[in-house]
């Protein structure tokens, strides 16, 4: 995983949530007791993806939630080709 995992996640999250992305990520870290970084365990990655998808689903519906989830999965899973 990239050294700038948090920046990549923030960029994707900002795409959907605008400038409050940093606040959202801070909440997710506190809530799940994780640190968004290149050292995240697969379980933490899944937890983060699940939470963000759920929030996006509530806020913007399935189309955007699926899109965000896909973008984040690609960005956070090293085995997958990274998105833009």
């Amino acid at each position, binding site marked *: 995983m990239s050294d700038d995992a948090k920046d990549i996640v923030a960029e994707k999250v*900002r795409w959907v949530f605008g400038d*409050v992305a940093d606040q959202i990520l801070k909440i997710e870290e506190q809530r799940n007791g994780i640190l968004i970084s290149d050292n995240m365990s697969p379980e933490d990655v899944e937890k983060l993806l699940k939470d963000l998808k759920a929030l996006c689903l*509530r*806020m*913007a519906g399935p189309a955007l939630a699926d899109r965000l989830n896909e973008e984040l999965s690609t960005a956070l899973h090293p085995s997958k080709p990274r998105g833009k």
Partner: protein
Amino acid sequence: MTENVPRLCTYVTGLDSRMSGGIPKGSVVLVEGSAGCLKSSLTYSILYQNALRGNFHGLYITLEQSRQDLEEHMAGLGMARSSQQDMESKIAIVDLGELRSFLTESGESEIGTNWLKSILKQIDSYQEEFPLDVFVLDSLNAMLSLQDKENPRVEMFHFIRELKSHPMTSFLISEVSGTERVGRGSVDFLADGIIRMEAKRVDEMVNMQMGIVKMRKTYHDRSFMPFIVRNGALEVVGK
């Protein structure tokens, strides 16, 4: 002068012909009226009817009414997104109320958040993915109540200027009570257009009316026009 301006059709039957064929693309239009005057329905129907007719992308941001409530209401008027293929990818409804609740429930203050800036960022992000044709903010009053009370005119100036820098047409829904226009700053002057919606009592009935108060680059009718909603579309009735 007005005939060469690219225009966004509202597809409200009888309205476009009363304003040179539609709203000049790229305009920022204020849709104002008291509660229950179908302001959201008008703007949503513009999104919906354009999306039905082809390649079109719209973003509807709601701050107070939930996405589910809005969708149910529009479905009740015959404008269900789920009934049409690709409609969900053509019209994105973003419920910032959910996000505000999430932040508050999580102990984060929403007061310090610059929502105007955040919305502009969201618009930029969407524009990177697809050309956004129409943007709707529902409502301006809710947005302004969350912003810095010290400089509403300054904030609105920059917000509207930013909206105008995008090629999309923007609709800002604004609640007014009577002639009261609280906290709107200079938006009346900055907006390119103002559509006023009213409920008028006629005998034992409440009739809806709309009027074009202002529309730059456009010759338009100045009368208040009664309208109805029929089969998922708004329709000006009478003369």
